[in-house]
């Protein structure tokens, strides 16, 4: 499952999608919006995606991961739209026979998603009493 969604991500559902009866291990990475960035308070974030390219790019990443590790199940869900601190922005879950490969594959996938998927975030930071600042990183 590859999902780009404006709705809050149901983490348990992502885990269930990635699970397999033959697996002994599931590794899950959850990205959350930090309350601080660049030394300032984050008021909210906006994520947008070029969805058609993003889904194809993530599919390539998963194909490569499946080639490298014996994955039995996987799921990637990325939130877009407006997110507040503490909210979940991305969930990657993979299952495999043994634990080592589940850690390696999950880390590979999230590293690749962060550097390759066509998704952009814009941070809205509080500066002083009434000031705002936008940051594209």
């Amino acid at each position: 499952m590859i999902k780009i969604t404006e709705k809050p991500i149901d983490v348990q559902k992502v885990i269930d999608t990635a699970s397999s009866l033959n697996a002994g291990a599931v590794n899950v990475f959850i990205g959350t919006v930090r309350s601080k960035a660049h030394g300032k308070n984050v008021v909210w974030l906006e994520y947008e995606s070029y969805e058609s390219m993003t889904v194809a790019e993530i599919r390539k990443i998963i194909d490569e991961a499946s080639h490298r590790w014996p994955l039995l199940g996987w799921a990637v869900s990325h939130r877009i739209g407006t997110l507040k601190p503490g909210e979940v922005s991305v969930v990657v879950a993979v299952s495999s026979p043994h634990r080592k490969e589940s850690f390696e594959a999950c880390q590979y996938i999230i590293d690749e998603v962060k550097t390759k998927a066509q998704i952009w975030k814009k941070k809205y930071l509080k500066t002083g009493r009434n000031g705002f600042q936008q940051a594209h990183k």
Partner: protein
Amino acid sequence: MKLKIKTFGITRDILGGRLVEIEISQPTVSLLRSELTRRYPDLENLNSLFVAVNNKYADESEELSSTDEIALIPPVSGG
């Protein structure tokens, strides 16, 4: 020829819209890039800027038509 350019991330701020029209005769990716940086010099400050045509990263020599889906892909920052 009139091209419609989709913008994402910081390129939307720089070009000032989600979909920007540009007129270029016999356009290629390379010519589009020159025209864009002429009009919007801030694009040169980006660490990288790819042009996607019909959902694929395009070579500089690729020819463009008015029916192509063209998009600017600045550095990504998902996750």
